[in-house]
């Protein structure tokens, strides 16, 4: 994992002290709220429905055990004992006091973390594949490139006041576990015509009120050109993106209104001017960062283990968990383990301080001291020995982190919704909990197979409802919370935007409606191997509409 240089540390400490001064001036009345707002947003501090909310960046979703313990400490000392992992791999605290925030940032800086650029119209935290470096389907580890982007984009003076916020995701695998198609820029590492790895460059994806899938504007970009090309895209956007209309300010609108071909020409023209400048990456620049992400010293282990095999046969509960929440690792004798943050007992993505501390201990004990966050609001221990799985499962079960539901019905993405968010128009968490309670049967969930449900509490779509197989959008209609269903979306390599199925449902009808959708799938699928998404594309909307609306 990347280790801060002395300069990085100094930069962070100076930033904390700068913000401490700004907070003090605000509290003394020397700064108005209007003057202070841009400063606090640049440091990740929002004012939400009930209190301030602090969003802390987790660069490309990678945490050390020490960092996780600090997150627990912050939750316990400054907040209400928990945090919320978001769809962009960050963590949010819902109850910090303004006067405490500089101290929180100080504690974060001590473990090389911060909240810089987690809000505001700037380049946000770069996200990535939670299985980066360990996935079997990976061309190349994307994390060094994420780190290069992090360094380039942090405090980039030209891009500090973009028309709107800007999100970049990078993946290096065949499977898309980072939702790159719905980011402002998505980079996919692929093998190029010269046999080297480079990037497919997608631009203009996004969700919100105008959901769009990113357009492929370059089929192959050599790695050394990554930063110059990003700079060219951002420069075109910064100059031509609309600042007159908040709802048309994202790059997806610029790409759409300019036209894909014309936008590509603009970027290429800008790139020609700057491609040989100082941002052109030399092999040694890339290698210097790659050295932080070298493989650990994996043991040479067999890919079988007697206790593991015996448990699979003798303990159905363990077998279910191993089937759903573990995955093959690139290294023989190791497994990737998903920690489900989707039990029936807590809001999706929420983790208590005690759980955080325990997860940090488990990471040290079983997984080389690292934890990853996922865009589906779960956690990952990426390097667990096969022979440790039984013991780890026992400990995760005791922590309520072993619900066997990864990528299944009850692995629901949910934004905080009207229970926390000042922008929301309807509640999300109670709907996710009602769905989980209704379908709390392993056999049923297992039989449904791979399936995603995402819930957003307003059109801003922080719950990614557009790209769920079954999406739920809560809206306010004449003072009542109602819920609109979309079907057929996907955030993976087959990314697509779901389609609205019909009129919205009342809060007390939406879970039944989900049940109806599932029953249509179960009654019409060709065989248990046909996923919900495949069946939906084959069947079309008609049978679902018929069942839902008669």
């Amino acid at each position, binding site marked *: 994992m990347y280790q801060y240089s002395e300069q990085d540390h100094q930069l962070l400490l100076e930033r904390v002290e700068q913000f401490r001064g700004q907070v003090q001036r605000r509290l003394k009345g020397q700064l108005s709220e209007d003057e202070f707002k841009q400063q606090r947003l640049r440091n990740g501090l929002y004012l939400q429905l*009930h209190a301030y909310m602090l969003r802390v960046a987790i660069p490309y979703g990678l945490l050390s055990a020490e960092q996780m313990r600090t997150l627990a400490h912050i939750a316990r000392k400054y907040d209400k004992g928990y945090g919320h992992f978001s769809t962009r791999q960050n963590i949010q605290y819902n109850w910090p006091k303004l006067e405490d925030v500089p101290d929180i940032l100080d504690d974060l800086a001590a473990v090389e973390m911060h909240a810089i650029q987690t809000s505001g119209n700037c380049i946000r935290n770069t996200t990535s594949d939670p299985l980066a470096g360990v996935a079997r389907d990976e061309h190349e580890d994307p994390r060094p490139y994420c780190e290069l982007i992090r360094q380039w984009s942090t405090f980039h003076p030209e891009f500090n006041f973009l028309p709107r916020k800007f999100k970049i995701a990078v993946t290096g695998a065949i499977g898309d576990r980072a939702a790159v198609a719905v980011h402002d820029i998505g980079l996919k590492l692929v093998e190029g015509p010269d046999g080297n790895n480079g990037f497919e460059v997608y631009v203009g994806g996004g969700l919100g009120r105008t959901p769009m899938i990113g357009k492929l504007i370059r089929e192959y970009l050599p790695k050394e050109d990554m930063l110059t090309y990003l700079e060219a895209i951002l420069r075109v956007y910064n100059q031509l993106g609309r600042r007159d209309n908040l709802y048309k300010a994202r790059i997806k609108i610029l790409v759409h209104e300019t036209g894909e071909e014309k936008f590509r020409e603009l970027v290429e023209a800008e790139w020609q001017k700057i491609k040989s400048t100082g941002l052109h990456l030399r092999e040694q620049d890339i290698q210097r960062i790659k050295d932080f992400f070298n493989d650990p010293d994996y043991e040479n282990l067999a890919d079988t283990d007697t206790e593991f095999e015996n448990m699979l046969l003798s303990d159905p509960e363990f077998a279910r968990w191993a089937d759903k929440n573990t995955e093959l690792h690139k290294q023989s004798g190791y497994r990737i383990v998903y920690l489900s943050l989707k039990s029936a007992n807590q*809001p999706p993505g*929420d*983790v208590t301080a*005690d759980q955080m501390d325990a997860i940090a201990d488990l990471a040290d004990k079983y997984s080389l001291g690292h934890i990853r966050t996922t865009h589906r609001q779960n956690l990952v221990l990426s390097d667990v020995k096969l022979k440790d799985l039984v013991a780890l499962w026992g400990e995760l079960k005791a922590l309520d982190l072993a619900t066997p539901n990864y990528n299944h019905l009850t692995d629901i993405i949910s934004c905080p919704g009207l229970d926390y968010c000042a922008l929301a128009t309807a*509640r999300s968490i109670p709907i996710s909990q009602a769905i989980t309670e209704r379908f709390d049967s392993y056999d049923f969930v297992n039989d449904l197979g791979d399936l995603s449900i995402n819930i957003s509490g307003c059109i801003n779509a922080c719950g990614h409802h557009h790209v769920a197989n079954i999406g739920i959008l809560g809206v306010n209609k004449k*003072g009542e919370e109602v819920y609109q269903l979309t079907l057929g979306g996907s955030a993976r390599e087959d990314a697509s935007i779901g389609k609205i199925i019909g009129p919205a449902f009342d809060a007390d009808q939406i879970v039944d409606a989900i049940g109806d959708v599932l029953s249509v799938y179960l009654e019409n699928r060709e065989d248990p191997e046909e996923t919900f998404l495949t069946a939906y594309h084959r069947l079309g909307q008609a049978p679902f509409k018929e069942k839902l609306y008669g």
Partner: protein
Amino acid sequence: MALQVYTASLLKEGLVAYLCLEEGAASWTSDIREATAGDGDALTTLKITAEKAEQNNLVIAPYAVDVLETDSGWKASTKREQIRAEGPTVSLPRDASTVSITAAGRQAA
């Protein structure tokens, strides 16, 4: 026209607060039931008082909220404002170290 109370966020804590105005003395409470409601000139007085508190850096972004009268005091009339007044409708994660954030449980501002 419905009766209204004035609400804002406390600058230091960020927590929700409601304006009480008794015999010309202003204070802020976390409990909407104890807020001062009014319309017409009384509401204008509340507005002026709230804006003064904002200028004095006690609160942020005051605004008026429609309320209904209940046996126990004022209650916000919209779902959003009810949740804002009473806290999340879902239980906080279970080993959360602090008290329930219902309106009654909040510390008075």
